[in-house]
Protein backbone atom coordinates (compact mmCIF):
# COMPACT_ATOMS: atom_id res chain seq x y z
CA UNK A 1 0.00 0.00 0.00
CA UNK A 2 1.53 3.31 -0.99
CA UNK A 3 1.99 6.10 1.53
CA UNK A 4 -0.66 8.37 0.01
CA UNK A 5 -3.35 5.68 0.04
CA UNK A 6 -2.39 4.73 3.58
CA UNK A 7 -2.76 8.34 4.79
CA UNK A 8 -6.20 8.66 3.17
CA UNK A 9 -7.29 5.36 4.71
CA UNK A 10 -6.10 6.43 8.17
CA UNK A 11 -7.99 9.73 7.90
CA UNK A 12 -11.15 7.88 6.81
CA UNK A 13 -10.79 5.47 9.76
CA UNK A 14 -10.32 8.36 12.22
CA UNK A 15 -13.37 10.11 10.73
CA UNK A 16 -15.35 6.88 11.15
CA UNK A 17 -14.13 6.52 14.74
CA UNK A 18 -15.27 10.10 15.43
CA UNK A 19 -18.64 9.69 13.76
CA UNK A 20 -19.58 6.14 14.75
CA UNK A 21 -20.68 6.73 18.37
CA UNK A 22 -22.90 9.72 17.54
CA UNK A 23 -26.53 8.91 18.26
CA UNK A 24 -25.62 5.57 19.88
CA UNK A 25 -26.68 4.42 23.32
CA UNK A 26 -24.37 4.18 26.33
CA UNK A 27 -23.77 0.46 25.94
CA UNK A 28 -22.57 0.72 22.31
CA UNK A 29 -20.29 3.62 23.28
CA UNK A 30 -18.97 1.54 26.19
CA UNK A 31 -18.16 -1.36 23.84
CA UNK A 32 -16.43 0.99 21.38
CA UNK A 33 -14.39 2.54 24.18
CA UNK A 34 -13.37 -0.96 25.31
CA UNK A 35 -12.28 -1.69 21.73
CA UNK A 36 -9.98 1.36 21.77
CA UNK A 37 -8.53 0.49 25.19
CA UNK A 38 -7.85 -3.14 24.27
CA UNK A 39 -6.33 -1.95 20.99
CA UNK A 40 -3.74 -0.08 23.08
CA UNK A 41 -3.02 -3.16 25.21
CA UNK A 42 -2.76 -5.33 22.07
CA UNK A 43 -0.49 -2.72 20.42
CA UNK A 44 1.93 -3.20 23.31
CA UNK A 45 1.85 -6.99 23.08
CA UNK A 46 2.23 -6.70 19.31
CA UNK A 47 5.53 -4.90 19.86
CA UNK A 48 6.78 -7.55 22.32
CA UNK A 49 5.50 -10.57 20.40
CA UNK A 50 4.81 -9.47 16.83
CA UNK A 51 7.81 -7.27 16.20
CA UNK A 52 10.41 -8.55 18.70
CA UNK A 53 9.28 -12.21 18.78
CA UNK A 54 9.11 -12.54 22.59
CA UNK A 55 6.06 -14.43 23.82
CA UNK A 56 4.24 -12.91 26.79
CA UNK A 57 1.15 -14.14 28.62
CA UNK A 58 1.25 -11.30 31.12
CA UNK A 59 -0.22 -8.29 29.31
CA UNK A 60 -3.31 -8.26 31.55
CA UNK A 61 -1.08 -8.04 34.62
CA UNK A 62 0.43 -4.83 33.24
CA UNK A 63 -3.07 -3.52 32.66
CA UNK A 64 -3.61 -4.34 36.34
CA UNK A 65 -0.50 -2.44 37.45
CA UNK A 66 -1.54 0.59 35.38
CA UNK A 67 -5.15 0.36 36.54
CA UNK A 68 -4.42 -0.04 40.27
CA UNK A 69 -1.72 2.66 40.31
CA UNK A 70 -4.01 5.12 38.52
CA UNK A 71 -7.02 4.16 40.63
CA UNK A 72 -5.20 4.48 43.95
CA UNK A 73 -3.75 7.85 43.03
CA UNK A 74 -6.91 9.34 41.52
CA UNK A 75 -8.92 8.11 44.54
CA UNK A 76 -6.50 10.03 46.75
CA UNK A 77 -7.06 13.21 44.75
CA UNK A 78 -4.48 13.08 41.97
CA UNK A 79 -5.50 14.12 38.47
CA UNK A 80 -5.59 11.28 35.92
CA UNK A 81 -2.92 13.06 33.86
CA UNK A 82 -0.55 12.92 36.84
CA UNK A 83 -1.50 9.41 37.98
CA UNK A 84 -1.40 7.70 34.57
CA UNK A 85 2.31 8.42 33.85
CA UNK A 86 3.24 6.85 37.21
CA UNK A 87 1.26 3.73 36.34
CA UNK A 88 2.92 3.57 32.94
CA UNK A 89 6.36 4.13 34.47
CA UNK A 90 5.72 1.34 37.00
CA UNK A 91 4.88 -0.96 34.08
CA UNK A 92 8.07 0.06 32.27
CA UNK A 93 10.16 -0.85 35.31
CA UNK A 94 8.35 -4.13 36.04
CA UNK A 95 8.28 -5.02 32.32
CA UNK A 96 12.01 -4.41 32.11
CA UNK A 97 12.44 -6.82 35.01
CA UNK A 98 10.16 -9.42 33.42
CA UNK A 99 12.35 -9.23 30.33
CA UNK A 100 15.30 -10.77 32.20
CA UNK A 101 13.96 -14.34 32.04
CA UNK A 102 13.64 -13.84 28.27
CA UNK A 103 17.41 -13.54 28.14
CA UNK A 104 17.68 -17.13 29.36
CA UNK A 105 14.53 -18.95 28.22
CA UNK A 106 12.64 -18.88 24.94
CA UNK A 107 9.37 -20.06 23.42
CA UNK A 108 7.13 -22.21 25.59
CA UNK A 109 9.35 -21.82 28.64
CA UNK A 110 9.17 -18.04 28.41
CA UNK A 111 5.41 -18.31 28.02
CA UNK A 112 5.25 -20.24 31.29
CA UNK A 113 7.45 -17.68 33.09
CA UNK A 114 5.15 -14.83 32.00
CA UNK A 115 2.09 -16.92 32.85
CA UNK A 116 3.48 -17.41 36.35
CA UNK A 117 4.05 -13.66 36.61
CA UNK A 118 0.43 -12.99 35.64
CA UNK A 119 -0.73 -15.37 38.37
CA UNK A 120 1.63 -13.74 40.87
CA UNK A 121 0.21 -10.27 40.17
CA UNK A 122 -3.34 -11.64 40.45
CA UNK A 123 -2.55 -13.18 43.84
CA UNK A 124 -0.92 -10.00 45.13
CA UNK A 125 -3.96 -7.97 44.07
CA UNK A 126 -6.31 -10.43 45.73
CA UNK A 127 -4.37 -10.92 48.96
CA UNK A 128 -3.02 -7.43 49.74
CA UNK A 129 -6.41 -6.09 50.83
CA UNK A 130 -4.97 -3.11 52.73
CA UNK A 131 -3.81 -1.66 49.40
CA UNK A 132 -5.92 -3.16 46.64
CA UNK A 133 -9.21 -3.86 48.39
CA UNK A 134 -8.73 -7.59 47.76
CA UNK A 135 -11.59 -9.35 45.98
CA UNK A 136 -13.86 -6.33 46.63
CA UNK A 137 -11.56 -4.19 44.49
CA UNK A 138 -11.60 -0.42 44.28
CA UNK A 139 -14.80 1.51 43.56
CA UNK A 140 -15.71 5.05 42.59
CA UNK A 141 -12.61 5.71 40.47
CA UNK A 142 -13.03 9.24 39.11
CA UNK A 143 -12.86 10.14 35.44
CA UNK A 144 -10.67 13.06 34.42
CA UNK A 145 -11.90 16.60 33.89
CA UNK A 146 -10.03 19.13 31.77
CA UNK A 147 -11.39 22.59 32.60
CA UNK A 148 -14.88 22.69 31.10
CA UNK A 149 -14.43 19.34 29.34
CA UNK A 150 -15.64 16.62 31.67
CA UNK A 151 -15.38 12.94 30.70
CA UNK A 152 -18.00 11.82 33.21
CA UNK A 153 -20.50 11.04 30.45
CA UNK A 154 -19.79 8.14 28.09
CA UNK A 155 -19.44 10.10 24.82
CA UNK A 156 -16.80 12.60 26.08
CA UNK A 157 -14.91 9.71 27.67
CA UNK A 158 -14.97 7.87 24.33
CA UNK A 159 -13.46 10.92 22.58
CA UNK A 160 -10.89 11.29 25.33
CA UNK A 161 -9.93 7.59 24.89
CA UNK A 162 -9.83 8.05 21.11
CA UNK A 163 -7.40 10.94 21.50
CA UNK A 164 -5.16 8.91 23.84
CA UNK A 165 -5.32 5.96 21.39
CA UNK A 166 -4.26 8.15 18.47
CA UNK A 167 -1.32 9.57 20.47
CA UNK A 168 -0.29 6.05 21.57
CA UNK A 169 -0.56 4.78 17.98
CA UNK A 170 1.55 7.66 16.66
CA UNK A 171 4.20 6.93 19.29
CA UNK A 172 4.15 3.23 18.32
CA UNK A 173 4.40 4.15 14.64
CA UNK A 174 7.48 6.22 15.48
CA UNK A 175 9.03 3.32 17.39
CA UNK A 176 8.48 0.63 14.76
CA UNK A 177 9.65 2.93 11.95
CA UNK A 178 12.80 3.95 13.84
CA UNK A 179 16.09 2.02 13.94
CA UNK A 180 14.77 0.52 17.20
CA UNK A 181 11.92 -1.04 15.22
CA UNK A 182 14.43 -2.51 12.79
CA UNK A 183 16.43 -3.90 15.72
CA UNK A 184 13.23 -5.43 17.22
CA UNK A 185 12.51 -7.20 13.93
CA UNK A 186 16.11 -8.35 13.68
CA UNK A 187 15.79 -9.84 17.17
CA UNK A 188 12.72 -11.77 16.03
CA UNK A 189 14.21 -13.01 12.76
CA UNK A 190 17.77 -13.92 13.70
CA UNK A 191 19.08 -12.85 17.12
CA UNK A 192 22.58 -14.26 16.62
CA UNK A 193 23.07 -12.42 13.33
CA UNK A 194 21.65 -9.26 14.92
CA UNK A 195 24.13 -9.54 17.79
CA UNK A 196 27.00 -9.99 15.34
CA UNK A 197 26.00 -6.70 13.67
CA UNK A 198 26.29 -4.73 16.89
CA UNK A 199 22.65 -4.97 18.05
CA UNK A 200 22.69 -5.33 21.83
CA UNK A 201 20.08 -8.10 21.83
CA UNK A 202 19.88 -8.16 25.64
CA UNK A 203 18.97 -4.50 25.85
CA UNK A 204 16.57 -4.73 22.91
CA UNK A 205 14.82 -7.75 24.48
CA UNK A 206 14.37 -5.89 27.76
CA UNK A 207 13.10 -2.80 25.94
CA UNK A 208 10.63 -4.88 23.93
CA UNK A 209 9.12 -6.11 27.19
CA UNK A 210 9.30 -2.72 28.91
CA UNK A 211 7.67 -0.71 26.09
CA UNK A 212 5.03 -3.37 25.45
CA UNK A 213 4.23 -3.32 29.18
CA UNK A 214 3.91 0.49 29.15
CA UNK A 215 1.10 0.16 26.63
CA UNK A 216 -0.54 -2.40 28.91
CA UNK A 217 -0.26 0.11 31.76
CA UNK A 218 -1.80 2.89 29.68
CA UNK A 219 -4.72 0.63 28.75
CA UNK A 220 -5.13 -0.21 32.45
CA UNK A 221 -5.20 3.48 33.40
CA UNK A 222 -8.02 4.00 30.89
CA UNK A 223 -10.03 0.90 31.81
CA UNK A 224 -9.99 1.93 35.49
CA UNK A 225 -11.60 5.24 34.54
CA UNK A 226 -14.00 3.66 32.06
CA UNK A 227 -15.44 1.05 34.43
CA UNK A 228 -14.80 3.14 37.58
CA UNK A 229 -14.42 -0.15 39.43
CA UNK A 230 -11.55 -2.63 39.32
CA UNK A 231 -11.03 -6.01 40.95
CA UNK A 232 -8.35 -8.73 40.46
CA UNK A 233 -10.61 -10.95 38.34
CA UNK A 234 -10.56 -8.34 35.56
CA UNK A 235 -6.83 -8.95 35.04
CA UNK A 236 -6.48 -12.74 35.26
CA UNK A 237 -4.78 -15.09 32.84
CA UNK A 238 -7.91 -15.37 30.68
CA UNK A 239 -7.59 -11.67 29.88
CA UNK A 240 -3.92 -12.05 28.91
CA UNK A 241 -4.95 -14.87 26.58
CA UNK A 242 -7.68 -12.64 25.18
CA UNK A 243 -5.14 -9.93 24.36
CA UNK A 244 -2.89 -12.56 22.80
CA UNK A 245 -5.86 -13.68 20.68
CA UNK A 246 -6.35 -10.07 19.55
CA UNK A 247 -2.74 -9.90 18.35
CA UNK A 248 -2.94 -13.29 16.60
CA UNK A 249 -6.33 -12.63 14.98
CA UNK A 250 -5.39 -9.13 13.83
CA UNK A 251 -1.96 -10.11 12.53
CA UNK A 252 1.17 -10.25 14.71
CA UNK A 253 3.91 -7.93 13.53
CA UNK A 254 1.55 -5.69 11.53
CA UNK A 255 0.90 -2.17 12.75
CA UNK A 256 -2.88 -2.25 12.24
CA UNK A 257 -3.24 -5.86 13.41
CA UNK A 258 -4.09 -4.99 17.05
CA UNK A 259 -6.94 -2.65 16.02
CA UNK A 260 -8.49 -5.32 13.81
CA UNK A 261 -7.85 -8.06 16.37
CA UNK A 262 -9.36 -6.09 19.25
CA UNK A 263 -12.27 -5.24 16.96
CA UNK A 264 -12.95 -8.92 16.24
CA UNK A 265 -12.49 -10.12 19.82
CA UNK A 266 -14.58 -7.36 21.40
CA UNK A 267 -17.09 -6.37 18.74
CA UNK A 268 -17.82 -9.72 17.05
CA UNK A 269 -19.43 -11.35 20.12
CA UNK A 270 -21.65 -8.27 20.43
CA UNK A 271 -22.61 -8.42 16.75
CA UNK A 272 -23.37 -12.13 17.08
CA UNK A 273 -25.69 -11.64 20.06
CA UNK A 274 -28.74 -11.96 17.78
CA UNK A 275 -27.90 -15.68 17.59
CA UNK A 276 -28.64 -15.78 21.34
CA UNK A 277 -27.16 -18.88 23.02
CA UNK A 278 -25.05 -19.79 19.98
CA UNK A 279 -23.02 -16.61 19.71
CA UNK A 280 -19.97 -17.87 21.62
CA UNK A 281 -19.94 -21.12 19.62
CA UNK A 282 -20.11 -19.26 16.31
CA UNK A 283 -17.48 -16.81 17.48
CA UNK A 284 -15.09 -19.60 18.52
CA UNK A 285 -15.58 -21.49 15.23
CA UNK A 286 -14.97 -18.31 13.20
CA UNK A 287 -11.73 -17.62 15.09
CA UNK A 288 -10.51 -21.23 14.71
CA UNK A 289 -11.29 -21.29 10.98
CA UNK A 290 -9.55 -17.97 10.46
CA UNK A 291 -6.39 -18.96 12.31
CA UNK A 292 -6.19 -22.24 10.36
CA UNK A 293 -6.62 -20.71 6.93
CA UNK A 294 -5.01 -17.32 7.51
CA UNK A 295 -2.41 -17.79 10.27
CA UNK A 296 -1.03 -14.32 9.60
CA UNK A 297 -4.29 -12.86 10.89
CA UNK A 298 -6.84 -10.53 9.31
CA UNK A 299 -4.12 -8.39 7.76
CA UNK A 300 -3.06 -11.61 6.02
CA UNK A 301 -6.48 -11.78 4.29
CA UNK A 302 -5.76 -8.44 2.65
CA UNK A 303 -2.30 -9.75 1.68
CA UNK A 304 -3.86 -12.82 0.05
CA UNK A 305 -6.33 -10.73 -1.93
CA UNK A 306 -3.55 -8.39 -3.06
CA UNK A 307 -1.29 -11.30 -4.08
CA UNK A 308 -4.03 -12.56 -6.42
CA UNK A 309 -3.85 -9.39 -8.44
CA UNK A 310 -0.33 -8.03 -7.89
CA UNK A 311 2.61 -10.44 -8.07
CA UNK A 312 5.28 -9.68 -5.49
CA UNK A 313 8.21 -11.63 -4.06
CA UNK A 314 7.86 -13.37 -0.71
CA UNK A 315 10.49 -14.88 1.57
CA UNK A 316 11.45 -18.35 0.31
CA UNK A 317 10.53 -21.29 2.48
CA UNK A 318 13.15 -23.58 0.91
CA UNK A 319 16.23 -21.73 2.19
CA UNK A 320 16.80 -22.21 5.90
CA UNK A 321 18.39 -19.26 7.66
CA UNK A 322 21.37 -20.28 9.75
CA UNK A 323 23.46 -18.62 12.46
CA UNK A 324 21.46 -20.35 15.15
CA UNK A 325 24.44 -21.22 17.29
CA UNK A 326 22.97 -20.88 20.76
Amino acid at each position, binding site marked *: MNAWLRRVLILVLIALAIGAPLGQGNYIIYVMTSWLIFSIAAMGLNLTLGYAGQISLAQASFMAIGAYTTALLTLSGWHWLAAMPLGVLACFVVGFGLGYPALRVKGHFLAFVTLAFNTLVFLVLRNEEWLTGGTYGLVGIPRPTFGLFSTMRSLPFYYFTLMVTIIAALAMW*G*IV*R*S*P*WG*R*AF*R*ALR*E*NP*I*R*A*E*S*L*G*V*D*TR*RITLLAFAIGSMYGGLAGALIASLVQFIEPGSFGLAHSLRILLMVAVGGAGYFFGPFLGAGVVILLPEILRFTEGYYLIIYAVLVIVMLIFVPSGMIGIWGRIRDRFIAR*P*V*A*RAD*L*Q*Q*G*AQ*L*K
Partner: protein
Amino acid sequence: MSQPVLSVRRIEKSFGGIKAVRGVSFDVHKGEILGLIGPNGSGKSTLFNCILGQLEPDAGQVHVNGRDVSGLRPSKLNRLGVGRTFQQLAVFPQMSVFDNIVLAGQEHRGTMLSRLFGPSDARLTADAERMISFFRLNHLRGTLAGSLSYGQQKLLDAAMAFMAGPALVLLDEPAGGVNLTMLAHLRERLAAYNAEHGTTFVVIEHNMEFVMSLCTRVIVLAEGAVIAEGTPDEIRSNQTVIDAYLGG
Protein backbone atom coordinates in the same frame (compact mmCIF):
# COMPACT_ATOMS: atom_id res chain seq x y z
CA MET B 1 56.54 -5.11 12.35
CA SER B 2 53.40 -3.09 13.21
CA GLN B 3 50.90 -4.23 15.85
CA PRO B 4 48.71 -7.04 14.50
CA VAL B 5 45.04 -6.29 13.87
CA LEU B 6 44.15 -9.72 15.26
CA SER B 7 46.28 -11.69 17.67
CA VAL B 8 45.14 -15.14 18.78
CA ARG B 9 47.10 -16.70 21.64
CA ARG B 10 46.94 -20.37 22.75
CA ILE B 11 43.18 -20.80 22.26
CA GLU B 12 41.82 -24.08 23.59
CA LYS B 13 38.29 -25.42 23.47
CA SER B 14 36.87 -28.83 24.37
CA PHE B 15 33.39 -30.27 24.01
CA GLY B 16 33.05 -32.96 26.64
CA GLY B 17 36.09 -35.16 26.18
CA ILE B 18 36.84 -33.97 22.64
CA LYS B 19 39.49 -31.28 22.20
CA ALA B 20 38.23 -29.22 19.26
CA VAL B 21 40.97 -26.56 19.39
CA ARG B 22 44.44 -27.23 20.90
CA GLY B 23 46.44 -24.13 21.76
CA VAL B 24 46.14 -22.30 18.42
CA SER B 25 48.09 -19.03 18.04
CA PHE B 26 48.52 -16.70 15.07
CA ASP B 27 48.68 -13.00 14.15
CA VAL B 28 47.00 -11.18 11.28
CA HIS B 29 48.31 -7.80 10.13
CA LYS B 30 46.56 -4.85 8.52
CA GLY B 31 45.43 -5.48 4.97
CA GLU B 32 46.27 -9.18 5.07
CA ILE B 33 43.86 -11.84 3.76
CA LEU B 34 44.49 -14.92 5.86
CA GLY B 35 42.99 -18.24 4.81
CA LEU B 36 42.15 -20.78 7.48
CA ILE B 37 41.76 -24.22 5.97
CA GLY B 38 41.60 -27.78 7.17
CA PRO B 39 39.65 -30.99 6.74
CA ASN B 40 36.15 -31.32 8.22
CA GLY B 41 36.29 -31.47 12.03
CA SER B 42 39.67 -29.72 12.20
CA GLY B 43 38.31 -27.00 14.52
CA LYS B 44 38.08 -24.06 12.12
CA SER B 45 34.53 -22.99 12.94
CA THR B 46 35.05 -23.59 16.69
CA LEU B 47 38.13 -21.37 16.56
CA PHE B 48 36.15 -18.72 14.66
CA ASN B 49 33.37 -18.80 17.22
CA CYS B 50 35.89 -18.52 20.09
CA ILE B 51 37.50 -15.48 18.43
CA LEU B 52 34.10 -13.86 17.82
CA GLY B 53 32.69 -14.36 21.30
CA GLN B 54 30.01 -16.85 20.23
CA LEU B 55 31.80 -19.56 22.25
CA GLU B 56 33.82 -19.08 25.41
CA PRO B 57 37.29 -20.62 25.01
CA ASP B 58 38.63 -22.83 27.84
CA ALA B 59 41.98 -21.02 27.65
CA GLY B 60 43.80 -18.39 25.62
CA GLN B 61 43.35 -14.76 24.65
CA VAL B 62 42.19 -12.79 21.64
CA HIS B 63 43.50 -9.27 21.00
CA VAL B 64 42.09 -6.87 18.40
CA ASN B 65 44.36 -3.90 17.68
CA GLY B 66 46.18 -4.61 20.94
CA ARG B 67 43.04 -4.73 23.09
CA ASP B 68 42.15 -7.92 24.92
CA VAL B 69 38.67 -8.83 23.67
CA SER B 70 38.49 -12.33 25.18
CA GLY B 71 34.98 -13.03 26.43
CA LEU B 72 33.46 -9.89 24.91
CA ARG B 73 29.92 -10.24 23.59
CA PRO B 74 29.65 -10.34 19.77
CA SER B 75 27.82 -6.99 19.69
CA LYS B 76 30.63 -5.26 21.60
CA LEU B 77 33.22 -6.90 19.38
CA ASN B 78 31.36 -5.67 16.33
CA ARG B 79 31.39 -2.13 17.70
CA LEU B 80 35.15 -2.42 18.07
CA GLY B 81 35.37 -2.94 14.31
CA VAL B 82 35.06 -6.71 13.86
CA GLY B 83 32.60 -7.94 11.23
CA ARG B 84 31.69 -11.47 10.31
CA THR B 85 29.72 -13.60 7.89
CA PHE B 86 28.15 -16.95 8.69
CA GLN B 87 28.61 -20.39 7.16
CA GLN B 88 24.84 -20.74 6.71
CA LEU B 89 22.53 -18.08 5.35
CA ALA B 90 22.23 -15.24 7.85
CA VAL B 91 20.13 -12.41 6.50
CA PHE B 92 16.84 -11.06 7.83
CA PRO B 93 14.39 -12.65 5.39
CA GLN B 94 11.36 -10.45 6.10
CA MET B 95 13.30 -7.21 5.61
CA SER B 96 14.26 -5.61 2.31
CA VAL B 97 17.86 -5.69 1.08
CA PHE B 98 18.08 -1.97 1.94
CA ASP B 99 16.85 -2.53 5.51
CA ASN B 100 19.29 -5.42 6.00
CA ILE B 101 22.15 -3.15 4.98
CA VAL B 102 20.99 -0.21 7.12
CA LEU B 103 20.55 -2.49 10.13
CA ALA B 104 24.15 -3.61 9.70
CA GLY B 105 25.32 -0.02 10.14
CA GLN B 106 22.79 1.63 12.44
CA GLU B 107 24.21 0.46 15.77
CA HIS B 108 27.42 2.32 14.94
CA ARG B 109 25.58 5.62 14.51
CA GLY B 110 24.64 7.97 17.34
CA THR B 111 23.27 6.98 20.73
CA MET B 112 20.46 4.66 21.76
CA LEU B 113 18.14 7.68 22.12
CA SER B 114 19.11 9.25 18.81
CA ARG B 115 18.27 5.94 17.16
CA LEU B 116 14.77 6.19 18.66
CA PHE B 117 14.06 9.85 17.95
CA GLY B 118 16.26 10.31 14.87
CA PRO B 119 15.45 9.50 11.25
CA SER B 120 14.32 6.03 10.27
CA ASP B 121 17.40 5.40 8.12
CA ALA B 122 19.81 6.52 10.89
CA ARG B 123 21.25 8.84 8.19
CA LEU B 124 22.70 5.82 6.45
CA THR B 125 20.88 5.96 3.11
CA ALA B 126 23.89 7.24 1.16
CA ASP B 127 26.26 4.70 2.76
CA ALA B 128 23.77 1.88 2.23
CA GLU B 129 23.32 2.82 -1.43
CA ARG B 130 27.11 2.78 -1.87
CA MET B 131 27.38 -0.67 -0.28
CA ILE B 132 24.46 -2.01 -2.34
CA SER B 133 26.09 -0.62 -5.44
CA PHE B 134 29.54 -2.01 -4.50
CA PHE B 135 28.12 -5.53 -4.27
CA ARG B 136 26.01 -4.88 -7.38
CA LEU B 137 22.71 -5.52 -5.67
CA ASN B 138 21.09 -2.30 -6.98
CA HIS B 139 18.28 -4.07 -8.83
CA LEU B 140 17.36 -5.89 -5.60
CA ARG B 141 17.34 -2.86 -3.27
CA GLY B 142 13.67 -3.06 -2.26
CA THR B 143 13.33 -6.84 -2.54
CA LEU B 144 12.71 -9.00 0.54
CA ALA B 145 16.04 -10.56 1.48
CA GLY B 146 14.32 -13.92 1.99
CA SER B 147 13.20 -14.00 -1.63
CA LEU B 148 16.76 -13.75 -3.03
CA SER B 149 18.64 -16.74 -4.42
CA TYR B 150 21.18 -18.52 -2.23
CA GLY B 151 24.12 -16.80 -3.91
CA GLN B 152 22.51 -13.37 -3.68
CA GLN B 153 21.87 -13.92 0.04
CA LYS B 154 25.53 -14.84 0.51
CA LEU B 155 26.49 -11.62 -1.26
CA LEU B 156 24.10 -9.63 0.94
CA ASP B 157 25.57 -11.32 4.01
CA ALA B 158 29.03 -10.12 2.95
CA ALA B 159 27.74 -6.60 2.24
CA MET B 160 26.22 -6.48 5.75
CA ALA B 161 29.53 -7.50 7.30
CA PHE B 162 31.25 -4.54 5.59
CA MET B 163 28.56 -1.90 6.17
CA ALA B 164 29.98 -0.55 9.45
CA GLY B 165 33.45 -0.13 7.93
CA PRO B 166 35.16 -2.80 10.07
CA ALA B 167 38.92 -3.07 10.43
CA LEU B 168 38.71 -6.86 10.48
CA VAL B 169 36.22 -9.22 8.85
CA LEU B 170 36.00 -12.94 9.48
CA LEU B 171 34.32 -14.80 6.63
CA ASP B 172 33.01 -18.29 7.41
CA GLU B 173 32.83 -20.31 4.20
CA PRO B 174 31.70 -17.43 1.97
CA ALA B 175 31.90 -19.65 -1.14
CA GLY B 176 29.85 -22.54 0.28
CA GLY B 177 27.00 -23.46 -2.06
CA VAL B 178 27.62 -20.50 -4.39
CA ASN B 179 27.65 -21.15 -8.15
CA LEU B 180 30.80 -20.49 -10.19
CA THR B 181 29.67 -17.19 -11.73
CA MET B 182 28.55 -15.78 -8.39
CA LEU B 183 31.71 -17.13 -6.77
CA ALA B 184 33.95 -15.26 -9.20
CA HIS B 185 31.89 -12.13 -8.53
CA LEU B 186 32.18 -12.56 -4.75
CA ARG B 187 35.94 -13.17 -4.93
CA GLU B 188 36.45 -10.13 -7.14
CA ARG B 189 34.36 -7.91 -4.81
CA LEU B 190 36.22 -9.09 -1.69
CA ALA B 191 39.59 -8.46 -3.33
CA ALA B 192 38.42 -5.02 -4.49
CA TYR B 193 37.19 -4.11 -1.00
CA ASN B 194 40.49 -5.21 0.53
CA ALA B 195 42.43 -3.16 -2.03
CA GLU B 196 40.26 -0.06 -1.59
CA HIS B 197 39.93 -0.02 2.20
CA GLY B 198 42.88 -2.05 3.46
CA THR B 199 40.48 -4.13 5.54
CA THR B 200 41.95 -7.27 7.08
CA PHE B 201 40.23 -10.59 6.30
CA VAL B 202 40.33 -14.02 7.86
CA VAL B 203 38.62 -16.57 5.61
CA ILE B 204 37.55 -20.12 6.44
CA GLU B 205 36.94 -21.98 3.21
CA HIS B 206 36.91 -25.47 1.70
CA ASN B 207 37.11 -24.23 -1.87
CA MET B 208 40.88 -24.37 -2.43
CA GLU B 209 40.80 -22.42 -5.65
CA PHE B 210 38.92 -19.61 -3.92
CA VAL B 211 41.35 -19.57 -0.97
CA MET B 212 44.52 -19.79 -3.04
CA SER B 213 43.45 -17.01 -5.40
CA LEU B 214 42.20 -14.64 -2.68
CA CYS B 215 44.47 -15.13 0.34
CA THR B 216 47.95 -13.74 0.91
CA ARG B 217 48.75 -16.27 3.64
CA VAL B 218 47.22 -19.60 4.66
CA ILE B 219 47.12 -21.48 7.97
CA VAL B 220 46.20 -25.16 7.96
CA LEU B 221 44.45 -26.79 10.93
CA ALA B 222 44.12 -30.50 11.58
CA GLU B 223 42.66 -32.08 14.71
CA GLY B 224 42.46 -28.65 16.36
CA ALA B 225 46.13 -27.70 15.90
CA VAL B 226 48.13 -25.68 13.35
CA ILE B 227 50.06 -28.06 11.09
CA ALA B 228 51.30 -25.62 8.45
CA GLU B 229 51.51 -21.92 7.65
CA GLY B 230 52.76 -20.10 4.55
CA THR B 231 51.93 -18.54 1.22
CA PRO B 232 49.36 -20.31 -0.99
CA ASP B 233 52.18 -21.74 -3.12
CA GLU B 234 54.03 -23.10 -0.08
CA ILE B 235 50.84 -24.69 1.28
CA ARG B 236 50.00 -26.32 -2.07
CA SER B 237 53.28 -28.25 -2.04
CA ASN B 238 53.41 -28.99 1.71
CA GLN B 239 53.47 -32.78 2.21
CA THR B 240 52.00 -32.59 5.78
CA VAL B 241 49.00 -30.69 4.41
CA ILE B 242 48.52 -33.14 1.55
CA ASP B 243 48.65 -36.03 4.03
CA ALA B 244 46.15 -34.36 6.37
CA TYR B 245 43.65 -33.83 3.55
CA LEU B 246 44.13 -37.30 2.09
CA GLY B 247 44.26 -39.00 5.48
CA GLY B 248 47.86 -40.16 4.92
